[in-house]
């Protein structure tokens, strides 16, 4: 199993933490993992992205130019990365913010209005990203939901651990939506 993932959005949407969450979840399953962020002035209010590799064998290169999965949380990220996804790859789209259609016709596309859903269901738009992670888990099976939930303890600082149940609900909603 080799799953190469790019996650992209605005700074503040939690793309870095989503990536770390997947990396930790992979570690929980004794997979080989790597996480690498974009860094620099572009992160202030602009787009941010990170690359995550989950693999059964040692990770050759942590730098990903053709991801199996692309998480898109805002429109500039779609424009920047859509062309790079492997044919037949997975595109997870935050349709609350991305109102345009993807150009590619050879991808598996899952559009979820996660900002709206997080607000409506949980009254907290900050768990929008977890809905997408849940959907990713359901579609790919690259890591299990249990591992992701377990990894929340590693990614969230201790004083935020009370938010784990909320994040778990958001993850479960993502799983449900992807399966329906």
């Amino acid at each position, binding site marked *: 199993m080799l799953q190469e993932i790019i996650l992209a959005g605005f700074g503040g949407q939690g793309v870095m933490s989503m990536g770390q969450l997947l990396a*930790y979840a992979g570690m929980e399953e004794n997979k080989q993992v790597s996480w690498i962020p974009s*860094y620099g002035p572009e992160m202030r209010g602009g787009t941010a992205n990170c690359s995550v590799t989950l693999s059964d064998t040692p990770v050759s*290169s942590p730098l990903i*130019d053709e991801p199996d999965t692309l998480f898109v949380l805002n429109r500039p990220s779609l424009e920047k990365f859509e062309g790079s996804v492997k044919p037949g790859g997975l595109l997870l789209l935050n349709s609350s913010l991305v109102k345009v259609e993807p150009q590619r016709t050879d991808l598996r596309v899952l559009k979820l209005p996660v900002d709206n859903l997080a607000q409506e269901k949980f009254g907290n738009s900050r768990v929008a990203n977890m809905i997408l992670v849940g959907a990713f888990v359901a579609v790919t099976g690259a890591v299990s939901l249990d591992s992701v939930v377990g990894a929340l303890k590693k990614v969230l600082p201790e004083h935020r651990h009370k938010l784990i149940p909320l994040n778990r609900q958001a993850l479960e909603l993502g799983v449900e939506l992807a399966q329906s």
Partner: protein
Amino acid sequence: MAKVLMKGNEALGEAAIRAGCRFFFGYPITPQSELPHYLAKRLPEVGGVFLQAESEVAAINMVYGAAGAGARVMTSSSSPGVSLKMEGISYIAGAELPCVIVNMQRGGPGLGSIQPGQADYFQAVKGGGHGDYRLLVLAPASIQEMVDLMGLAFALADKYRNPVMILGDGTLGQMMEPVEFPEMLDPEKLPQKPWAAQGAKGREPNIINSLYLNPLELEDHNLKLQAKYTQMAAEETRSESYYTDDADIVLVGYGSSARVCKAAVDQARQQGIKAGLFRPITLFPFPKAEIQAACRQAKAVLTVEMSMGQLVEDVRYNLEFRVPVHFYGRAGGMVPTTRAVVSKITELVQEGGRSA
């Protein structure tokens, strides 16, 4: 100890502490600032000293002082900051003091960019500062290897009384991978340094100096330094050979470029191309016998680096121009892609490995 997921810069900081380093002097610069940031918190916890100096020049001279007093001491920076330290590094090498210097390279020249680069190769392995001196240069390619090499760096610095550089790049500094740390070394139990300036009560004073006004004495000093570098070449070379045994095309790269090369070798092998990778881990001393062995039956060699062609010169020189050595590089903070490297390999195969 269980594995933890950690950024390269932070892992280097923890590894330095495990290796018994209790003194750090530095000045922040992207993309290595997480290292001083980590040590600012962590060193006081173990009774060490973290000091953010007023400049890189001040920091390296504090390293000079601490090393002269026998401490395990480290500084870190990124390209422009390392240039500023060069005068002090030459003094430290001249005075034969052990220390560790980390360079998380970024794009250059000048202020350049804050994105990853490898264009400080010449500066690291050929001198950089003035005079006939060499650093022992270690080039890790993963977070675990950064940790492993940090312990080695301090040991080699003490063994040779010579500064050791860990030459990384922005990618290695910023990325996270699972890592396992060695047990904590007790700094009190490290070998004594009878040459250090620690108070001369009851003995002749030790003098830490790089000034020799008598040219004959200075020549002798230079010959002594050269003998040390020759010994390093005989005893300390390290490298990794990946699928080189039957390789028609051998890639050569270090640090994060070598990771890209490894992925390219994997893809080329899937296409039925006999590709391999030779990765120098010591850049000085260069693993000459090892690269010759790895390229013994290669029809062509391809050097990949984030520069306009620096490592490639040492590859040609050490292969004694017996094999055509090609070059692919990106610069300015651009990183080579696996796809681009694979297509270079394919081109070489179509050309039968001959020089273009």
